[in-house]
């Protein structure tokens, strides 16, 4: 780094001017990744690629990435300033997560010089959208229990077989960061390796997974004898868990990562907008019913408490009085509170949350679907059950669960009921 780095305030002024002059107002499909259909989604992706290129050409792409890879070589404070200025403007929302974090962040940390030179500029220019290939159909909470495997052939290449799942938007993405098993004769954490791979190539089949609410952003990938050159290996053979832990750290940072370009202070949205509890009670004619009012109050109170808890946990971490395990407290609370809030909204809406006239104003479809999907907040990104283990064991210091796989060669770990 040079000493003559631009001051954050100068940078902010310059960024603000450029943003105002060059970026339009924020769009619905920026706030929510939800698109009405695939055509709209393809259009949104193309737009995001172009926006990212615009950023790159103007010298604002990859603010914390080194200049040698096309980045700006600036600090997290510069990135934060840019993100603050970005609020209210359109941006390349489909690059933020997982392309910049965890993928590009992990690539920057662990990639070879050749890998970084080949991919970081391409990402910053909007040419490559990345996904992370981590979860597996048989995996669930046990991330290190992966069975998708790669074996080396006599030419030194790796041949990949298996399947990954819950990959958001893989059907239109370009490259993937993948964790695979390369050694079955050692305990599970010591036999994995990390590779990078193009998603659209022979031997890769991508299926889209429809959720019960009709949305199908998540995909499952099936790998059949996919060839990966050894030059696309990241890190040492069998040492993939070291990378994996940092990778998951970058994943947890998500939009808060200094490598991510994403407006700060923007209202977050997901799926069709949900009416307020007051609007729901009014629609169902219960706004003056004390029972409905208690629900409205509880819904609001839980929302406030959720915010305050997150704030408390984050500020404890920042002040050094907390630790990262405490974020599991937040995760448990959010999961439980969001399910309760979805239930309250559903109760307030009455029958029209389940059966609705799609032509009517303020239709309550979202309320019904949110209710059916209410557990997603307690499942996605690791279940609340795993978080409760973390709270009990690492925050309260209680004895750890006995595991059936400690010190056992991976191939001998029980992965299903004993037969016969």
């Amino acid at each position, binding site marked *: 780094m040079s000493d003559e780095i631009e001051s954050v305030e100068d940078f902010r002024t310059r960024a603000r001017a450029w943003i105002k002059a060059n970026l339009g107002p924020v769009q619905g499909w920026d706030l929510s990744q939800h698109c009405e259909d695939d055509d709209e989604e393809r259009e949104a992706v193309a737009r995001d690629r172009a926006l990212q290129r615009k950023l790159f050409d103007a010298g604002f792409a990859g603010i914390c990435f080194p200049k040698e890879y096309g980045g700006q070589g600036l600090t997290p404070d510069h990135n934060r300033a840019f993100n603050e200025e970005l609020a209210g403007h359109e941006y390349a929302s489909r690059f933020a997560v997982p392309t910049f974090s965890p993928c590009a962040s992990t690539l920057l940390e662990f990639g070879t010089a050749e890998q970084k030179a080949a991919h970081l500029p391409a990402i910053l220019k909007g040419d490559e959208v990345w996904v992370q290939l981590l*979860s597996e*159909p048989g995996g*669930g*909470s*046990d991330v290190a*229990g992966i069975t998708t495997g790669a074996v080396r052939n006599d030419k030194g290449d790796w041949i990949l077989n298996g399947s990954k*799942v*819950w990959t958001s938007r893989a059907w239109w993405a370009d490259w993937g960061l993948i964790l695979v098993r390369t050694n079955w004769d050692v305990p599970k954490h010591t036999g994995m390796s990390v590779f990078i791979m193009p998603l659209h190539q022979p031997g890769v089949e991508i299926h889209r*997974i*429809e*959720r*019960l*609410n*009709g949305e199908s952003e998540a995909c499952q990938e099936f790998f059949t004898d996919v060839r990966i050159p050894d030059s696309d290996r990241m890190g040492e053979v069998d040492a993939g868990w070291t990378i994996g832990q940092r990778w998951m750290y970058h994943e947890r940072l998500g939009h808060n990562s200094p490598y991510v370009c994403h407006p700060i202070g923007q209202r977050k949205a997901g799926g069709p907008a949900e009416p307020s509890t007051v609007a729901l009670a009014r629609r169902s*004619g219960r706004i003056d019913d004390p*029972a409905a009012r208690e629900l409205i109050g509880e819904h609001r109170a839980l929302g406030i408490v959720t915010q305050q808890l997150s704030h408390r946990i984050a500020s404890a971490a920042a002040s050094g009085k907390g630790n990262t395990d405490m974020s599991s407290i937040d995760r448990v609370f959010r999961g439980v509170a969001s*399910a309760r809030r979805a239930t309250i909204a559903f*109760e307030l809406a*009455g*029958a*029209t*949350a*389940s*059966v*609705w*006239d*799609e032509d009517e104003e303020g239709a309550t*479809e979202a309320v*019904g*679907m949110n*209710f*059916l*999907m*209410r*557990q*997603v907040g*307690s*499942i*996605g990104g690791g*279940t*609340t*059950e795993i978080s*409760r283990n973390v709270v009990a064991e690492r925050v309260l210091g209680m004895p750890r*669960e006995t*595991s*059936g*796989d*400690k010190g*056992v060669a991976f191939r001998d*770990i*029980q*992965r*299903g*009921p004993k037969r016969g």
Partner: protein
Amino acid sequence: MLHELTSDQDMLRDTTARFLSDRVPLSKMRKDRDHPAGFDPAYWTSGAELGWTMLLVSEEDGGGSVSGNGAADLALIAYEFGKHAAPGPLVDCNVVASALSGQTGDLQSAVLQGLLSGADIATSCLGAAPWMQSGSESISIRRDGDDLVIDGTVLPVESAAQASYLLVTGMSEGGMTQVLVPANAEGVTIKPLKAIDVTRRFGKVSFAGVRAPASALVGAFGGADAEVARQIQVAAVILSAESVGAMDAAFDMTVDWAFNRYTFGRALASYQALKHRFADMKSWLEASHAISDAAAEAVGKGDGSAAELASAAKSYIGVQGVELAQDCVQMHGGIGVTYEHDLHFFLRRVTLDALLYGTPADHKRLIAAMQINQEMAA
């Protein structure tokens, strides 16, 4: 479901179970999500031949129970409907059939015969109900000379677009009125609705000055309150039994999952935190069986406790059935919310069953009103 069935009851249940497995497997339902009716007419007439619509109808009218308690028999069918997430207006056709059983008019008899054979579908437009505050009912029925005039809009109405007849419940001077109206009568508009369910279809039915002759009345003008309350008990019995079937399906599937799914080298079923949650679910499930059976028994007999038991079943199962299904989703993790998985059929079923014919809150209020009346009288 009852522990002890008569052999006739068991045959009734088993025949329906096998029929549903054969004709409407979940794989078919999954594909038929855009089918306008959710089922083929032949499915419904075959079901009617198995006795689906006759159990609450008197023998004189061509119906009959297998055990002497038609509601208890019907609960067995409903249980299998829930267990298979089966399509078809079981609740409404039986509600209307039970309303028409013993009625003397020509129209009433003709509609009832159509229901019994499965040739016709009739559904209930419940625009006034015992839990509604006066003034909040959505349908009014008034006299105009010898005619009745119906106004208002009601939703959700199951299989409205497939029904030939509508049993309309509205408010009149003095109390509730019920009228039987052809679905194609002038002034009736039926609009198909979207729903969270995949297997059942609902509509919004509007009445704009719809006229019906006095002969279409079911019961007395302004005097149907008790009969409507009884019909709601019937619906509560069917919906509760259906939800118990769906709960059983979801629970069994999740127990299997817990035995077969391994994480950290151990079956999910070996983790005590999950075991305790399964134990709680099992207690809700057995309690739901118990209250569902008791409600069916009492409603079938017309016991004094029928209203209270039916509302207890509807309110308890309406809450706990949904909580059980959601806990099953949680136990499954991400796969539990995919469309390819079977679980959501049962989640949708219990969720919608909880809302039809009075929400859990509505039925709790009904029970409270009964308690208050009883203590005032004492």
